[in-house]
C-alpha cells in the first residue's frame, strides 16, 4: 500500500495574485507579469487572428477569414455593450440611492429632528442586497466603488469619497484586513510612497511579530543585541495601524481646506457571508473607536437576507451600526431584459435557435442565476458561429442585413468563392426551399442550383431581406400578442411569460401560429364586453404610439392590408365611440402617416371632422343597441387570429435561416456542462476513441487486448471486481495480460510490478479506488456503472 500512497500525493502552487499585495512581493510580481506578457506574445504568434483558421480545407480566402474574425469582434463588442448597459440600467436607481446615502451619511439631518441625540454616533452602514450569485458581485461592486469615487470628480459641491473594497479572500485575519483597507485608501493619493528601506524593514518586522505572536516569549540572548540596535531608533508604524489612516486623513483634509464638505471614507465589504464574523466585529469596533475623527461609511454586500447579519454578528457589534437597506435588482430582471433586447426584438445580431435558447434559460433558472455564465454562453455562441461557419460572413453586420451591394462588392473583392455557394446549397433550409419551388417555378430552382452568381448576388440578399422582414413583422405581432395577453390578468394560470412564449415560438414546428395560447386568446377576445374592449383598444393604440416613436416605418411599410393595424384600431375605436387616447398625439402621428400612405388619407380626414358630440351620441346609441361591441369584438378576434397565424410562424420556414440562428447545441452542452466522469470512463474503457490507434480497436468492448494502455487494462480488470479488490489477485491478472503482449514469454517481474503500481496510482488519483484499513492488501472500489 505504501508504495502508491506517496505517488499520487499532490502539491499546490500558489501564485501571488493581488495587485496591491505586500510591497515585498512587488519585485517578484513584476517578473511574473513579464512572463505573462511573453507567454501571450508567443501564443499569439502561433495562433494568429485569435485562432481563426481558414476553412474549406484551407481554401478559404485569407480576407474572408479576416472578415469573420472582425465580424466576431464587432458583434461581441455590440452584444457585450447591450449586456453591460442593461445591467447598469436595471440598477441605476439603486446606485443613485446608495450614492446619496453615502454623501449624506455624515451630514447630521435626522439627528436634529429627534429631540435628543443618540448615546453614541453609530457608523452609517448601507446593507446592499445583491442576490445569491456571488461571482457576479465583483462587477457590481466595482461599479458602485467607481461611482462613489467618481462623484467627487464630477462636481466640487458633492462630497468626494475614498473607497476601500474588501473581499473575504484577502481578509483572512484582522491584521491583513486592516492593512488591505488602509493601503487602498492611501493608494488613492499618489504622494504616499514606500521607500525601499521601509520595505525591508517591514518584512523583518513582520517575521518577528509572527514569532512573537506564536509563542509570546523571546530569547534572552537576542535582547542585548536588540537593545543596542533598536532602542532609540524611531520606527515607522506597522502598515495595519489605524493611526496611519487617521494621520493621512488629517493631511488630506488640510490640503483641501478650501472645500467645506469633508470626504467620506467608504469601506465596502463585498461578500459578508464569507467573512469571518469575528474579524468584522473587531473591524467595526475599531471604526467605531475612530468615529469622532474619521467619517467612515460602511457598505456591506449581503447575498441572502438581513438574517445573515443578525445571525453572525453579536448584539454589541450590531449596535455599532446604523443600517439602511438597499436592494439591487435580482439577476433575473437583468436576464429578462437581455432576452428582450437581444432576441425578441428584431436586432441585427446572431439569434439563438430553440435548443441553445432553452439551454440558456434552463441553466439560468434551474441552476445558478449567474450573469457571468450567461455572458460566457453568449460569447461562446458568437465565437463558435464565426469561427466554424464559413457562411458567417453573410451574417448581419453593423446593424444591417447583408445587402445586395455588399455582396457584389464582396464577390468583386474575391471574398466569396464557389465553396460558399456550395455550402449554401447544402443548407437544409435551402434544400427544402428548392423542393418547394421546383414544381411551381422550375426555372428559378434550376437557376438557384446552377448559377453561382445569381445565387450569391440576387437570391441570397433577397432571402436575407425576407428573413429580416419576417423578424420585424413577427416581433410586432408578438408585441400585440403580449399586449392582448396582458388584458386578461385574471387568467394567471394560462399566462405565459414573454421568454416562454418566445421559446414556444422557436420550438414549435409552426411557431405560435396554431398554438393553444392563440386559440385561447382569440376565444377570450370574442367574449369581451364593451368595457374590456375599450381597455384592449386603448393599450393597443398605446403600443402603436410607442412603435411610431421608435420605428415608424414598420407599420406603414406593412405590405398587407391585414396589417394595416393603425387604420383598423382607429376604426374600431371610433365605432365604439371612444375618445382618442390622446387627441393631439394621435393626430400628429397620423399626419406623418398621411404622407406615406395615400389610402389612409380619407378615413383620417373623416375622423378629423367628426365632432365630439357626434361621438357621444354614437356612444349612447351603441350602449342602447349593444350589438356593435359584439361585432367589433368578433372582428378583432378574426383579425388577431389572422395575423397570429400568418406572422407567428416558425423561423425554420425561411431559407438561409441558419445564417442568423445558432442551433449547435452539442458543443454548447459539452462546453458548459461537461461530464468528466463519463469521458474518463470512455477513455479508459474504449481508449481507441482517444488515442487513435488501430491495434486496440476491437469490436468486443469487454475484451482486454494486451496492446492497450496499462491503465486501461487495469481498469477493465477492475470492472470485473467486487467491492473489495485484492491487490495481489489484481496484480496477477494484470501480469497475465502483459505476458500475452510479449508473446507469452516471461516478463521481468520488476517491470510488471512497476507498471502495475503506476497504473494503480493513476486509478487512485482518478478516484476509482481508495485505500482501506478494513482488510489487508485490499482496496475499496469506488465507482459502479451500468456498462
Amino acid at each position, binding site marked *: 500500500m505504501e508504495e502508491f500512497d506517496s505517488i499520487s500525493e499532490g502539491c499546490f502552487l500558489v501564485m501571488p495574485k493581488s495587485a496591491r499585495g505586500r510591497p515585498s512581493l512587488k519585485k517578484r510580481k513584476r517578473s511574473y507579469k513579464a512572463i505573462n506578457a511573453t507567454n501571450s506574445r508567443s501564443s499569439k504568434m502561433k495562433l494568429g487572428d485569435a485562432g481563426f483558421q481558414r476553412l474549406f480545407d484551407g481554401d478559404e480566402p485569407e480576407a474572408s477569414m479576416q472578415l469573420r474574425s472582425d465580424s466576431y469582434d464587432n458583434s461581441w463588442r455590440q452584444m457585450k455593450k447591450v449586456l453591460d448597459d442593461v445591467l447598469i440600467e436595471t440598477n441605476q436607481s439603486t446606485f443613485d440611492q446608495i450614492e446619496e446615502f453615502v454623501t449624506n451619511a455624515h451630514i447630521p439631518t435626522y439627528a436634529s*429632528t*429627534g*429631540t*435628543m*441625540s*443618540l*448615546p453614541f454616533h*453609530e457608523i*452609517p*452602514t448601507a446593507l446592499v*442586497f445583491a*442576490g*445569491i450569485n*456571488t461571482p457576479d458581485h465583483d462587477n457590481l461592486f466595482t461599479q458602485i466603488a467607481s461611482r462613489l469615487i467618481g462623484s467627487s470628480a464630477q462636481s466640487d459641491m458633492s462630497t468626494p469619497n475614498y473607497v476601500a473594497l474588501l473581499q473575504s479572500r484577502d481578509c483572512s485575519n*484582522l*491584521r491583513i484586513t486592516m492593512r488591505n483597507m488602509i493601503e487602498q485608501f492611501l493608494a488613492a493619493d499618489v504622494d504616499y510612497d514606500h521607500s525601499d528601506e521601509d520595505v525591508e524593514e517591514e518584512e523583518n518586522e513582520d517575521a*518577528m*511579530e509572527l514569532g*512573537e*505572536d506564536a*509563542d*509570546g*516569549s*523571546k530569547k534572552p540572548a537576542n*535582547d542585548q543585541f*536588540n537593545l543596542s540596535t*533598536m*532602542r532609540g*531608533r*524611531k*520606527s*515607522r*508604524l506597522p502598515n495595519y*495601524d*489605524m*493611526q496611519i489612516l487617521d*494621520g493621512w486623513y*488629517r493631511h488630506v483634509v488640510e490640503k483641501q481646506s478650501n472645500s467645506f464638505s469633508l470626504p467620506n471614507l467608504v469601506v465596502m465589504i463585498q461578500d459578508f*457571508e464569507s467573512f469571518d464574523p469575528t474579524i468584522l466585529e*473587531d473591524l467595526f*469596533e*475599531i471604526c467605531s473607536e475612530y468615529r469622532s475623527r474619521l467619517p467612515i461609511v460602511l457598505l456591506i454586500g449581503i447575498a*441572502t*437576507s*438581513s438574517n445573515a447579519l*443578525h445571525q453572525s454578528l453579536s448584539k454589541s457589534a450590531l*449596535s455599532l*451600526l*446604523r*443600517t*439602511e*437597506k438597499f*436592494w439591487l435588482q*435580482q439577476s433575473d430582471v437583468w436576464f429578462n431584459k437581455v432576452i428582450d433586447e437581444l432576441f425578441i426584438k428584431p436586432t441585427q445580431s446572431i439569434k439563438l435557435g430553440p435548443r441553445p435558447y432553452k439551454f440558456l434559460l434552463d*441553466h439560468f433558472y*434551474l*441552476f*445558478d*442565476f449567474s450573469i457571468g455564465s450567461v455572458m460566457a454562453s453568449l460569447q461562446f455562441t458568437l465565437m463558435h458561429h464565426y469561427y466554424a461557419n464559413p457562411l458567417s460572413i453573410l451574417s448581419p453586420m453593423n446593424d444591417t442585413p447583408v445587402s445586395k451591394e455588399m455582396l457584389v462588392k464582396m464577390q468583386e473583392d474575391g471574398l466569396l468563392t464557389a465553396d460558399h455557394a456550395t455550402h449554401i446549397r447544402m443548407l437544409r433550409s435551402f434544400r427544402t426551399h428548392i423542393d418547394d419551388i421546383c414544381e411551381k417555378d422550375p426555372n428559378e430552382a434550376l437557376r438557384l442550383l446552377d448559377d453561382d452568381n445569381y445565387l450569391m448576388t440576387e437570391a441570397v440578399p433577397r432571402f436575407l431581406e425576407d428573413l429580416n422582414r419576417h423578424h420585424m413583422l413577427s416581433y410586432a405581432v408578438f408585441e400585440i400578442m403580449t399586449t392582448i395577453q396582458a388584458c386578461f390578468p385574471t387568467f394567471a394560470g394560462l399566462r405565459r411569460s414573454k421568454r416562454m412564449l418566445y421559446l414556444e415560438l422557436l420550438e414549435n414546428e409552426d411557431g405560435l401560429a396554431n398554438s393553444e395560447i392563440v386559440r385561447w386568446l382569440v376565444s377570450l377576445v370574442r367574449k369581451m364586453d364593451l368595457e374590456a374592449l375599450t381597455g384592449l383598444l386603448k393599450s393597443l393604440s398605446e403600443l402603436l404610439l410607442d412603435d411610431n416613436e421608435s420605428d415608424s416605418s414598420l407599420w406603414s411599410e406593412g405590405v398587407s392590408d391585414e396589417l394595416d393595424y393603425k387604420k383598423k384600431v382607429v376604426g374600431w375605436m371610433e365605432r365604439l365611440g371612444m375618445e382618442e387616447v390622446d387627441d393631439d398625439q394621435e393626430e400628429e402621428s397620423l399626419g406623418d402617416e398621411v404622407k406615406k400612405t395615400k389610402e389612409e388619407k380619407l378615413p383620417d380626414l373623416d375622423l378629423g371632422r367628426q365632432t365630439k358630440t357626434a361621438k357621444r351620441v354614437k356612444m349612447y346609441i351603441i350602449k342602447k343597441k349593444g350589438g356593435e361591441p359584439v361585432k367589433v369584438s368578433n372582428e378583432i378576434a378574426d383579425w388577431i387570429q389572422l395575423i397570429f397565424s400568418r406572422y407567428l410562424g416558425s423561423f425554420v420556414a425561411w431559407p438561409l435561416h441558419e445564417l442568423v440562428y445558432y442551433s449547435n447545441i452539442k458543443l454548447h452542452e459539452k462546453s458548459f*456542462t461537461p461530464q468528466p466522469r463519463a469521458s474518463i470512463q470512455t477513455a479508459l474503457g474504449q481508449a481507441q476513441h482517444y488515442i487513435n490507434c488501430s491495434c486496440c480497436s476491437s469490436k468486443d468492448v469487454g475484451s482486454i487486448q494486451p496492446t492497450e494502455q496499462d491503465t486501461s487494462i487495469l481498469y477493465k480488470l477492475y470492472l470485473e471486481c467486487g467491492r473489495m479488490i485484492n491487490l495481489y489477485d489484481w496484480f496477477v491478472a494484470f501480469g497475465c495480460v502483459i505476458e500475452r503482449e510479449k508473446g507469452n514469454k516471461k516478463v521481468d517481474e520488476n517491470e510488471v510490478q512497476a507498471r502495475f503500481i503506476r497504473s494503480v496510482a493513476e486509478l487512485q488519483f482518478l478516484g476509482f479506488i481508495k485505500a482501506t484499513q478494513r482488510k489487508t492488501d485490499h482496496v475499496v472500489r469506488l465507482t459502479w456503472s451500468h456498462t
Partner: protein
Amino acid sequence: MNDMADHSAELKRRFPGRSDQIDTLLSLMGRPADPTVPSILIYGHSSSGKTSLVRDLLSTTIARKQWAYINCIERHTPRMMFEHAVNEWCSWSPSWDNQFTSIARIDNLNDFLCVLKEGVPLNQHSTEMIGDKETRYLVLDRAERLRDMGATILPALLRLSEISQRNICVILLSTIVYEKFRTKSGSYEPLVIRFPEYSKEDTLQILRRDFSEDGMDIEVEDKGTVHLNDDFFRSFSEVIYSIFFQNCKDLNELRHLVALLFPLFINPIRDGRAKTHETAKLFKLAQPYFAEATDKLYLREISSSEWAKRTSEMADAKTTTSHTVDASVIAAIRTNAKGDFDLPYYTKFLLIASYLASYNPPRFDVRYFAKVADEKKKKKRGIHKSASDKSGGKMRQQLLGPKAFPVERMLAIFYSIIDDKLDDAIDIPVQITSLTTLRLLLRTTNMDKLDGAKYKCNVSFDFIRGVARSVRFEIDKYLFDFI
C-alpha cells in the same frame, strides 16, 4: 488636597452612582509621586461606565502624558500596544509630518522593559524617563484580548512595576471577571474593582443627563411653543425604565431607546392631541410604539435611522384621526420583512435535501425516499409511526439542531425528490459550494479533507418551508418526527 476634593466632587456629579468607585480609585492613586498598586482590574457590564469614567478621571486629575490609553482590539499586537503606550507617555503622535514613526521601536515585551529602564531619547539632549518619579498609568481597555497575545504578556503586565522597577500602574478594563484571566502557571493578582449595575434611581439620573437641563421648548400647532421640563422627562424615562429594564440592563441600549421613543412620545403634544400634563393619555397614545420597540428596535431589526425615517414620515403625513396614524406607523415599521431572496430551482431542492438529511435519521431514508413499488405501504407505516412519536422524546432532532451528513447521502435524497431525471451535471457540486458561501450549508469537515466532506444545513424550519412551498414540495411529509 483641596484640588483633589474638587475633582472628586465634579466626577461624582458627572457619573451618578459611581461615587464609591471614584473614591476607591482616587485613594489608590494618591498623590502623583506616591507608589501605587501594580495593577488594577476594573470589571463590570458593558456600558457600565468603565471606559468613560477611567478616562475622565485620569484626564481631570493628572497630566495627559502621565497616562496612556490602549484599546486592545485596535492595538492587537504587542508591538502596537507598547509603541503606542510609549508614544503617549512622551506626548508624541505619529502623523504625516513625521512619516508615521513611533518615538521608539519596540517589538516585544523585552524591548518595552528596556525602554522603561533606560528612558526614551527625545533628541540629543534630553531623554524622557518613564515612571522614575511620578506614577505613569497604562490603561488597557478590552483587556480580555490580552489573553490572545501570548502567554507571557498578561502576567508580566500585572506586575510591570516590579519587573521594570518603575512607578507604573496598569489598569485593566474588562467585562469579564478575573477568574477567566487566570493562567495555569499562576500570576500576580491585580486589585479588583467591580462596577456594579446601576440602581433605578441612578439609571434615571444618568438618563436625565441626556435631556437638556433647562428643559426644552417645542412648537405646537397653532399655539406657539410649550415648555417641557425636567419632571416631564423624568416621568417619561421612568416608564421606559419600567418597560425595558427586565430584558435590558445595558445603559446604552436604554439611552438608545429613550432617544428614539421620546420624539414619538411628544408628538401628540405637537399636533395638539394632548396636553403636557396629560401623561396618562400620552402613554396610551405611545403604547403601540413601545410594544413594537421591545423586539424590533432592541434587537436592531430596525436600525435607528430606519426608525427615525419611518416615524418622521408618518408624522409628516398628518392624518386627523389618531388611530389610523398609529396603525399605519406600526404597519410601516413591520414592513421590514421585505427582501427575502430567490434561489435557482435545483438549488432549492439541494437545500431541501440537505435539510432532510440534517434532520432525518439515516435509517429512515429507505422508508421516505426509496422509489419502490410498495411505496404506499411504506408511507402508511411512516405516517403511523410518526404519529405515535409525536408526543416527542427529548432527543428529537428538531430540538437538537441539524446533524452533519455526508454529501453522498444528501445527493441520494436530492435525486430521489426531484421529479425529472438529471444528467450528473457539473453544476450540482458548484451549487453546493455556493450554498456554503451563502452559509445556508455549513461544511463541518476541514477544507483540506477532500474526501467524504460533511455538511450541515443551516436554515430554520420556517425558511425551508417557504422554499419548499415555492417549488410545490410537501416537506412535512418527508420529515420524521416533526411538529
